[in-house]
């Protein structure tokens, strides 16, 4: 087969794939969005009408975050913690679903739309904690599943009294 024939074949295969795309597009399942626990508003359910929330929830959260952070305005209407408290789903193991699991309220749409969010790098993705500040030691992070190391470091528990010897980087 000459180089020319190969390239012709490749073009045909590519064209075939492109033609087939619309067929597959219809088969992607729409996200199943979990129901809220309660009605924040009798009229439209959530704090704003659902269409408004779908389009602009990020703007509400963004404004709230700046107001709270910088001005100390601590209203709960648009707070992320309230989203989490209300749209809470139990995962397969009976615990709350975490961000990144299919059932988590935020994950359902964000996985579908392939939009990555940073919120849960710092904010908790489930309602109120029994024990805050646990390290991420499970398989969700491939670098942090060293069981031997984890056990060792919990043994060498030190008191808060020690002053760092070097630079507290």
């Amino acid at each position, binding site marked *: 087969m000459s180089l020319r024939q190969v390239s012709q074949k490749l073009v045909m295969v590519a064209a075939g794939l492109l033609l087939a795309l619309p067929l597959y597009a219809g088969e992607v399942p729409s996200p199943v969005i979990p129901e809220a626990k309660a009605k924040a508003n009798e009229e439209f359910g959530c704090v704003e009408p659902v269409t408004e929330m779908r389009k602009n929830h990020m703007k509400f959260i963004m404004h709230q*975050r*700046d*107001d709270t*952070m*910088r*001005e*100390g*305005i*601590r*209203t*709960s209407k648009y707070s992320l*913690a309230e989203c989490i408290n209300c749209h809470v789903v139990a995962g397969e193991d009976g615990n709350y679903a*975490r961000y990144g699991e299919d059932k988590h309220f935020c994950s359902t749409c964000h996985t579908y739309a392939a939009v990555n969010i940073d919120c849960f*790098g*710092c*904010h*908790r*993705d*489930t*309602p*109120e*904690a029994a*024990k*805050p*500040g*646990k*390290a*991420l*030691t499970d398989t969700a*992070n491939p670098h*942090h599943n060293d069981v031997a*190391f*984890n056990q060792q*470091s*919990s043994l*060498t*528990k*030190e*008191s*808060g*009294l*020690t*002053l*760092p*010897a*070097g*630079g*507290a*980087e």
Partner: protein
Amino acid sequence: MEKNNTLIDQARRSFFGKVAAATGVAVAPGMVLFQVAQAKPAAIAVTDKVRWGMLINTTKCADGCDACVTACQNEYGWGPESEPHSAPNQRAQWIRKVKLTDKATGHVQTLPLMCQHCEIPPCVDVCPTGASMKRADGIVLVDKHICIGCRYCMMACPYKARSFVHEDLRDQNVNAPRGKGTVESCTMCVQRVDNGGIPACVEACNAENHNAMFFGDLNDPESEISKELAANGGEQIRADLGLNTGVRYQGI
């Protein structure tokens, strides 16, 4: 030259020392104070009518007691369990107990050291993104939403009060979002204060019956902290830097 500098330094120190002692009362005459002891309404922004501060009496601070440190760890989840892979001097530390021993006399003092909530915070000066910020009521915070983790503020802080989070975290306290790649420090328990409460360390110190820590409004001459400052004074650590810290110490 050397001698002159020393003299200037001393003059500055005594000047700032006097300012420190006077601040509590000097604000009072001619100022109308709207400050209330109760919680502010949630929808109202904080104002500069209030300046939150702390006063720590080191003579009451017990050697060997770390109730304030433990309370802070429990409240915000920092500590060995939070970052198990990091070296102890890498881990976040919002508040620490410092022990001072006078070698000549053997006199031992201990004190808690944390963000001093400066009026002129060097960390805010150097921040390239505006993440390091001071609220109107004097509380210095990191806006982690826009912190890029450059750590300039850590270098600028004369009190070594700020830390960088090196590890992925989960299950944070709802009130204390913290995560890898951002800088953090004592927040003077800003969410408690906004709801009319007092910082966790002060609460813990009182619970231990040491009562070494006062929290209150430095702008209000009637507040407990201002009265105590007016009566017995309070030093700033590194007063020579002229930062007008919100945290003051007695007995150092």
